[in-house]
C-alpha cells in the first residue's frame, strides 16, 4: 500500500470520527460540559455579578444559589437593594418573592431578567436539561481546538431560544458562547474565563457576558463558595419561598 493511500485512509477516518460525533454524541458532550458548572446533584454557592458600563464598574449583585437536580433552583438575592427577594424555578414553573408583595408571585417565562446578566444566567446553568444539542463543526477558538454545538431550547423556561456553544475538544470545557432570542437577535456573548479545582472537580469560577445590543456593557460573573450540600426538597416549595 502506498503512502498516498494511507494518507487518504487517515483523512477518511478523521472525517468519519467528526461525523459520528455529530450523529450521536452532541447531547452527551453537552452533559459533560455541564459538569464544569453543575458538578454535583445538589449544591450551594454564591454568584457575584459586576456590571460594567464603558469599562467602569457600575452595579454589583450578589446571589446565593441552591440547586438540586437539573430542574430545582432557589436563588436568594443578597445585594443591598434586592435583599429579601427570592426566585424559585421548578422545571418550567417560576415564582418570585419580593419583600413588598410578601408572597410568592407566579411569573411568566418572559419575565426572566435580560440585560447583561439575567436570572437565567444565574439559575439555569444545566444546558443539557434545557436545550437540544446539534453538532455543528470543529474549529479553532483562539489557541484551543473546539467542538461547536448549536443548542435549541426544549423547555419554555429556557433562558434563550438558541445558543452557539464552543467546547474544548480535550475535555468539553466551555470556552465561549453566543446567545440568541426567538427573533434570531444575537443578544449576548460569553467567555468562560477561569476554572479551578473545587471539592474534587474542576469548576467554572469566572465568566464574562457581553451585551450585543449595548456594546459598551458587560458583566463579570464570579462563582464562589460552591460546595455539595444535601438540600431538603421543601426548600424548593413555593410556599416556603420567603424563608432564607
Amino acid at each position, binding site marked *: 500500500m502506498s503512502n498516498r493511500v494511507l494518507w487518504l485512509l487517515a483523512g477518511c477516518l478523521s472525517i468519519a470520527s467528526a461525523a459520528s460525533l455529530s450523529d450521536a454524541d452532541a447531547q452527551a458532550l453537552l452533559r459533560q460540559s455541564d459538569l464544569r458548572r453543575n458538578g454535583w446533584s445538589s449544591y450551594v454557592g454564591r454568584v457575584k455579578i459586576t456590571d460594567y458600563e464603558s469599562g467602569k464598574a457600575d452595579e454589583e449583585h450578589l446571589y446565593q444559589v441552591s440547586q438540586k437536580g437539573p430542574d430545582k433552583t432557589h436563588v436568594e438575592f443578597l445585594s443591598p*437593594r434586592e*435583599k429579601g427577594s427570592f426566585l424559585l424555578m421548578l422545571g418550567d414553573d417560576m415564582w418570585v418573592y419580593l419583600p*413588598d408583595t410578601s*408572597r410568592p408571585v*407566579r411569573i*411568566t417565562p418572559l419575565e426572566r*431578567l*435580560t440585560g447583561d446578566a439575567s436570572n437565567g444566567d444565574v439559575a439555569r446553568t444545566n444546558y443539557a436539561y434545557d436545550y437540544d444539542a446539534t453538532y455543528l463543526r470543529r474549529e479553532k477558538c483562539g489557541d484551543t481546538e473546539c467542538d461547536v454545538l448549536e443548542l435549541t431550547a426544549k423547555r419554555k423556561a429556557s433562558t434563550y431560544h438558541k445558543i452557539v456553544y464552543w467546547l474544548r475538544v480535550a475535555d468539553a470545557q466551555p470556552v465561549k458562547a453566543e446567545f440568541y432570542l426567538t427573533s434570531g437577535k444575537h443578544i449576548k456573548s460569553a467567555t468562560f474565563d477561569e476554572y479551578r479545582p473545587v471539592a474534587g472537580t474542576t469548576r467554572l469560577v469566572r465568566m464574562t457576558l457581553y451585551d450585543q445590543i449595548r456594546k459598551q456593557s458587560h458583566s463579570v460573573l464570579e462563582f464562589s463558595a460552591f460546595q455539595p450540600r*444535601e438540600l431538603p426538597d421543601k426548600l424548593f416549595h413555593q410556599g416556603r419561598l420567603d424563608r432564607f
Partner: protein
Amino acid sequence: MNARVLILVPLFCAVSLADDPGCAPDSPTGEIRYALSLTEEGSFAAGLRVPGADTGNLLLLEPSFAYKYGDRWRFSTSLAGLAETQGGTHEQVRVRETYVGFTAGDLDLTVGKRILRWGAGYAFTATGILDPPRVATDPTDRLNLNEGRELGEADWIAGKQEITIVWASAGLVDQHQPGVRDTAAVRYGVMFDGFDTSVIVAHDGGGSTLAGANFTRVIGDAVEIHGELAWRQQAAVLLGGKYTLRSGFSAIAEFYTPPNTAYYRPIGMPASAGRQHYGFLRLGKSPLRELPGWKEWDVTVSFVSNLDDGSRIGVFDAGRRVKNHFRAYLHAQTPGGKPGRSEFGAIPYSALVSIGVTVQM
C-alpha cells in the same frame, strides 16, 4: 373543644416529635441576614377639600434582621420607625414582623408576628383572610408599612402539597384593631397540571366562617391568569391576568366583586350600597426585566375604578436606582368621582404627589 385548642394540640405534638435526630443536618451552622433602609419623602396634596396641611414629610427607618441555625431554627424581625410631619409631628415604631421558626422534618412551626398573604390577587383579594389589608392603589405596600398578625402556624409540606394551620390573635401584645378577631384557619395548597391552587377554610371567633379557593396558572411564555372565589355569607369573586410583552413591559388586569357585608365593606361605604364591582389595570415595566437602557428605572401606571359609582383613581409611580444603595422615586395619584357620594370621589384632594429618596444597606 374550641378552635384555639384544635390548633395548639398539633403544634405541641409536633414539637415533641422534633427530637428525631434523623432530621438534623450533619453540621448545622448559623447564618445571618440584615438590612437597613432610610427613606425621606415629601408630599403635596393639591385641591385639598378638608382643613389641614397640604404638605407633609415622612422619615422612615426600617431595619430587619434574620438568623438561621442549620435547617432547624430561624428568627426574623422587621421594624419600621416613622416620623411623620403634617401640621404636627408624630413618631411611631411599628413591629412589622418578629417570629421564631422551628423545623422538624416536613413540619415547620412558627410563633410570633408575621405577615401572611394567602390571596392570589394583585390589587384585591377575596381569600386573603390573614393578609394585611390590600389597598388597590398601593398593592405592593410601597413603603413596606404593613404589619403581620400575631399567630402560631404549622406548615406541613410533602412533595407538591402543603397544609398550613394557623391560629391568629386579634391582638395579644398589640392593641386590638377594630374589626379584627381571633382567627383559626386551614389552608391546603397543591400544584397540579401547572395550576398553583389553594383551598382555605377560616373561622373568626364569635364571627362567621369563610370558605374559599384560589389559583394561578401560567399559559405559554407571556400569560398568567389567577382567580379567587370565597364564600362568607355571600360570594366574593376575583378574576385577573397578566400579560408580559417581549419588550419587558407588562399589563395586569383584575375584576373584583365583593358583597357589601361587614367583612368586605370598605371604610366609609354605606351598608345600603349593595354588591360592589371593581376594575383594575396596571401597565408597567416589569421589575424582573432589565431592559437595555432602562435597567435603572421602574415605571408603572395604575387605574382603579369602582364600576358601580363610576369613581376612579389613577396612580403613577416612577423610580430610578442609583448605583447599589440609592433610589429616588415619585408617586402620584389623582382621584375622580362625585365628591362625598362615591368611593374614590370621597378622597379629599384632587392630586397627591410624593417625592422621596431611599438609602439601602
